[in-house]
């Protein structure tokens, strides 16, 4: 029996709203955005994301695909009620535009989207693995787990210090925090794949939660399997609609019925059981267009 309870999404329908950027702050290589998006924070569960339109509301936009961002935190801000915190890494034109916005800017936001992390039925030990900006959804998850009496172990990774989400706040919720950077500028030098086996062994985790690049998720899923732990992997695929309408985001999985099929990263995921994902196919597909 699975130790985690699959979340139901029935009553938590997403909203499409015009949001407002309240604050924006540079933290290392990222921009932290504070967003008012009426109704969205109230529906949030860890592992949900929002989809943002590129371009001001009402303006014609040349970029039709949505951009997805993990909900990092939900925080009340005086006079506005609960707000969303997003962590944006400015890479392409969409994220750069978003990172360049000034407070007061208005944005079209849809959310919360996606199936969130499944929570353990019992207060077991958990390992949370996050790399780069994708560590964002693990912090609210850590809090939720601690509330349920779970022991939380954290493994936070990044290319370097600038690409490391600060684990400072999480230390409250966590029993142990391991940090690994590719250049060794903070914590251990290396990749998640190099250390996850070890950390997992030490944590005695029954459930592993992971968010990051596909290769990292794969390594985590393999390690979990080896240790007899359940894994919940947050799979990022380029999303077009992010709402389950377009079938542009297929993830190859094996269903409960043992049948191989493709599910939608945005609507059936992004969080998927690590043992259900057909990683070889996913990594091949994502790497090579054909």
């Amino acid at each position, binding site marked *: 029996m699975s130790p985690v309870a699959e979340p139901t999404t029935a009553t938590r*329908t*997403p*909203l*499409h709203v015009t949001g407002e950027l309240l604050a924006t702050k540079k933290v290392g290589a990222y921009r932290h955005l504070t967003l008012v998006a009426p109704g969205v924070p109230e529906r949030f569960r860890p592992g949900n994301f929002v989809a943002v*339109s590129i371009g001001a509301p009402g303006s*014609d*936009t*040349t*970029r*039709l*695909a*949505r951009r997805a961002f993990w909900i990092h935190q939900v925080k009340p801000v005086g006079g506005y009620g609960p707000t969303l915190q997003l962590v944006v890494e400015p890479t392409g034109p969409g994220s750069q535009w978003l990172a360049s916005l000034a407070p007061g800017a208005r944005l*079209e936001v*849809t959310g919360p989207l996606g199936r969130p992390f499944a929570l353990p039925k019992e207060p077991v030990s958990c390992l949370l693995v996050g790399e780069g900006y994708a560590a964002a959804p693990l912090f609210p998850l850590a809090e939720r787990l601690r509330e349920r009496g779970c022991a939380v172990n954290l493994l936070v990774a990044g290319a370097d210090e600038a690409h490391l989400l600060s684990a400072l706040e999480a230390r409250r919720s966590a029993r142990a925090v391991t940090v690994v950077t590719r250049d060794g500028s903070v914590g251990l030098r290396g990749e998640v794949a190099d250390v996850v086996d070890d950390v997992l062994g030490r944590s005695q985790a029954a459930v592993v939660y992971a968010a990051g690049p596909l290769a990292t998720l794969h390594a985590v899923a393999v390690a979990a399997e080896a240790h007899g732990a359940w894994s919940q992997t947050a799979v990022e*695929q*380029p999303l*077009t*609609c992010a*709402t*389950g*309408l*377009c*079938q*542009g*985001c*297929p993830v190859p999985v094996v269903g409960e019925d043992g049948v191989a*099929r*493709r599910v939608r990263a945005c*609507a059936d995921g992004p969080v998927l059981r690590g043992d259900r994902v057909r990683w070889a196919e996913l990594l091949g*597909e*994502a790497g090579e*267009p*054909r």
Partner: protein
Amino acid sequence: MSIDLGGLTLANPVMVASGCGGTGRELAAYVDLHELGAFVTRTITLNPRAGGPVPRILETPSGLVHAVGLQNPGLEPFLASELPQLVQQGARVVVSIAGTTLGEYAELARRLGRAPGVAAVEVNLSSPDAVASGVLDVREPFHAANVVAAVHRELPRGLPLLAKVRPDLIRVVESARTVLEAGAAAVVVGNALPAAMPDGRPAGLSGPAIRPLALRCVTEVRDALPDAAIVGCGGIADEADARSFLAAGATAVQVGTALLHDPTTAARLARALTTDREVIG
């Protein structure tokens, strides 16, 4: 106050285009499906199709290039779960179909004709080639008409058939004429146009980028076939766009790509055009 589309009655002229409304479950968060003129399902084939490799969809200026490959669960699972769910939500359901042989088209028609809650069948005759690989090649109007005739023969009387033809100016009038002669109640003018992704892979282009091309095709079909029931489709994103198609002679419109960008689009358009006398009749 309602729209008559060759026998298909709609509360308003706004339809969700095939392949852009998911299963209907997802859209329900943003619009009551019964508020829409109609919901066209993704194209359903007899057997399940896994769809194409990734990346399936990329952005291009004011458009999307895509090669989803008609991913769908196949007819049986569709009838078992997707259709009942749409019916339950009060959607006016138009089922889009494609087949690999005339026999498959006939079988799809036969079985959909018996399924409760199907308001009409839309025959997809216009997938950009190489994107819907394996599906019967119906680029020649003559072949398209054969398909329509085969489907029409199997559908119960009173269940309207919509034929979706490619908005390709050279052949669109001939295509429209032949499918209407073969039994289509209305012609849907519009689909993604054959295009390439930046790396050269074949794909379809949709969205506001192609709107002026689709609009021209609607104009031509209207001029050539003054009595045809025409559904315009291609790049419609706001009320003004929809009105330009209605003014050009479309009786109804379908909205596709715009829904992927903003899932509330169809609801907004339906509301804007519902109580609108000038576009009705």
